[in-house]
């Protein structure tokens, strides 16, 4: 079970990184979502091997680790908030630069630096 869980964590992380390395901002945002998912899974995977019942616990029965669950909850909520902010940023960037491609953004940034500094070529 440990092996399977960590394999899935690794796979989600790799897919996330692969998406983040794309040239297009929507996919970059998707990649960060995947990475968030992989880390939530990693936190909760700690309780997979010895999980018990969660509701209506009789005294003495095995219980799932509640600390890991609360950590995962925090991670999910924060991940959601940050992803939402990221998506809005994607939208803003598209409006400001008229493009969804990262290389265009770099060009625009270099041009701006070039214009403000004037004499120093970048």
């Amino acid at each position, binding site marked *: 079970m440990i*092996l399977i869980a960590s394999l899935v964590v690794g796979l989600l992380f790799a897919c996330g990184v692969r998406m983040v*390395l794309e040239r297009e901002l*929507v996919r970059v945002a998707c990649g960060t979502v995947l990475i968030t998912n992989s880390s939530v899974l990693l936190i909760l995977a700690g309780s997979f091997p010895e999980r018990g019942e969660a509701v209506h616990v009789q005294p003495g029965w095995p219980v799932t680790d*509640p600390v890991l669950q609360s950590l995962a909850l925090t991670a999910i909520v924060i991940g959601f908030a940050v992803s939402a902010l990221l998506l809005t940023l994607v939208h*803003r960037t598209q409006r400001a630069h008229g493009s969804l491609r990262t290389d265009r953004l770099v060009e625009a940034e270099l041009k701006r630096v070039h214009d403000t500094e004037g004499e120093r070529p970048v």
Partner: protein
Amino acid sequence: MPLLLPILLALACAPLAYVAGRWRPGAAAWVGASLAVASLVALGWELTLGPARLVLPWAPTWGLSLEFTRDGLSGLYAVMALSVGALVVLYSRAYLPHHLELKHRPARDEVRFHVLMLSFMAAMVLLVTVDDLLLLFVALDLTTIVSYLLIGYDRDDPESRAAALLSLVLTGATSVVFFAGAMTLGLQYGTFSLPLVFERAATSPASTGALVCLAVGALGKSAQVPFHFWLPRAMAAPTPVSSYLHSAAMVAAGVFLLQRLYPLFAPAVAVRDGLLALGFLSMAVGSLLALVADPFKRVLAYSTIAQYGYALVLVALGSEGAPLYVAAHAPCKAALFLTVGAVTQVTGSKKLSQVSGLRHSLPVLAGASAVAAAGLAALPLTVGFFKDEVFFHALVQKGPAFMAAGLVGAGLTLAYTLRLWWGLFGGARQDVPAAPRLLVAPVVVLAASVLAGGLLPGLLVAPARAAASASMTRGEPATLELAYHLDARAENLLAMGAWALGAVLFATRLAWTPGLARVLDGTSRFGPEHGYRLLLHQLDRLSTWLHELEVRDLRDRVASVLVPTGLLGLTVLWVTPLRHRFIPGTVGWADLTLVMALAFASAAALATLRARGHLVLVMLISCVGFSLAMVFAFAAAPDVALTSVLVETTFTLLFAGLLALLPDRRLARAQQEAQQPRDRDRFSAGIAGVSGFLLSWSALSHLEADRVGTQTVKLAEVAHSPNVVAAVLTDFRGLDTVGEMSVVVAALLGVTSLLGLKGKR
């Protein structure tokens, strides 16, 4: 806390001078100098009270405290720093306006200079007074930083900026090495307090590595071979800076460190032999370069390297005269620097070949600087005579080879000193306007002190002995004797030989100077300065290359963080000695649902890579999220599963909304261009994935059997909460939840404000 009075007064100089300078620029120097004199008086009063220590607790739980000492060594160096400092600040009052006018800078910039000089003086006083390895390092770095600002004072001049950078890089890098040595000692002895370190070093000697590190820091500061080349370059600074930092203060700091830490070096004969060799080498290199250099300040800079070579030899030999040597050298060298500064101001030239015969126009300056030069060249009736006497005395005990080396060194000193003085004041008459009085007075005062020390050597014995017993003799009373002996003892014979050699060298200088200049010019191409330049150039190229690489593509920027981190993680796993590193775990029939949900999530994640349309992509991403929610549900985490479903639903709607906001045309174009994955992206993703997989596998294989969770379940009953997770979130980790809430609120505020902004379409 009477011990702190001189330090506090010295620290108050710079701020008060600044305040006075805001009122009237000319007042800054006077206020600063008078406070320095006040501090000097306080120090003199302190020194009459005898040795003392002061320990102020700083971080007692870590065993850190601020420790100060008042002993002979700190007294000698502090008097030197304060008195020369006060004189140089007064001199700058006359020097700076002219200098600023030449550089086309406003006159109020003068205040900045005085403030920096006085800050440097305070840092120096702090350095010599602290009695703790860490504070020693802090004070050392303070002097480095202020000296960087002072050398680069003419900030419009690229040459002085480069010189400032060189001195910062070199003395800063070597002081980091010093820090490494100090930390090693601190760990070895369990304390940074110097008396305790010395006490413990008496039973278990310090490691050679630590001592070498400490010595490197000191050598860098004292501009000894192979770090000597920063000092001549630093002559780009205004002359008062050279006079103070590069004769009496900063360069002295290195030798001071060695003297302060001498009890550690005393048993390490191999390290001291290395220092001895470097001292003689610096003497030779400095003296020879001083014999051919043309700019006055360079002659003096090379002479400083050579003179601190002498001091290094004395420390390496464990001579009691080492502190006296530095103290006797300082007024002579400072006076000569101030002299050449005055000469440059009245003549406008900086080279020996451009001036001559100034004795007619500047008689007072010529006389005073003759005394200082005689002091530097160790002629009798000056304090300099005794610095060479202790030097010869130490060499006589080592043997004839050392005596010969000392004789040649002293002869070369006399030769270059004569060459400098004669070059300035001797020869064909040249008429120049008279120098301002304030430029000459400090030289006269310094020369008078040089003469007084030479005429009344008895005055020097007590401070020299006190300094020696605080450092070189490790607490034993020193037996240093200073007197003129009119007999044929070895020291006297060596001194006579040196004068004869120097006179001969000076008389025949026209014959050998061109040849020597050619040889030195040829060898300088292979010196450490060339290596430094090469290193700087290559580092510059590397940085440009990396910058280009990073900026050209944002993807590489991300990958350049992820790939090294992944490799680092793998390396950590590789080198960490863990038993049963990886446990595959067991899979039973009960886990079937869990495994299926995980497989579903993986399949969806893989499919996102191939997704063509944006809508499909969003659907796949939310599919991953919902599959994970399923996983959480099967893993007996209902709260997490519920939250996850809720969050995924909202997120999918949000994402779909974003797609509706983005123009279709652009989406379609971006999509076509996005489908060009590069091999190195796959590679980066592979590294990241493998590293993430192995790290999480290793982490999950080493879960503690005794969980916090079992405790938490019991505590939840006390908290009267049937839901343990809710108890954890709202009670046990309530502060974390507040933090989480603030992140969510901040993100939402960001979202609303970004969506509300009106931007160009």
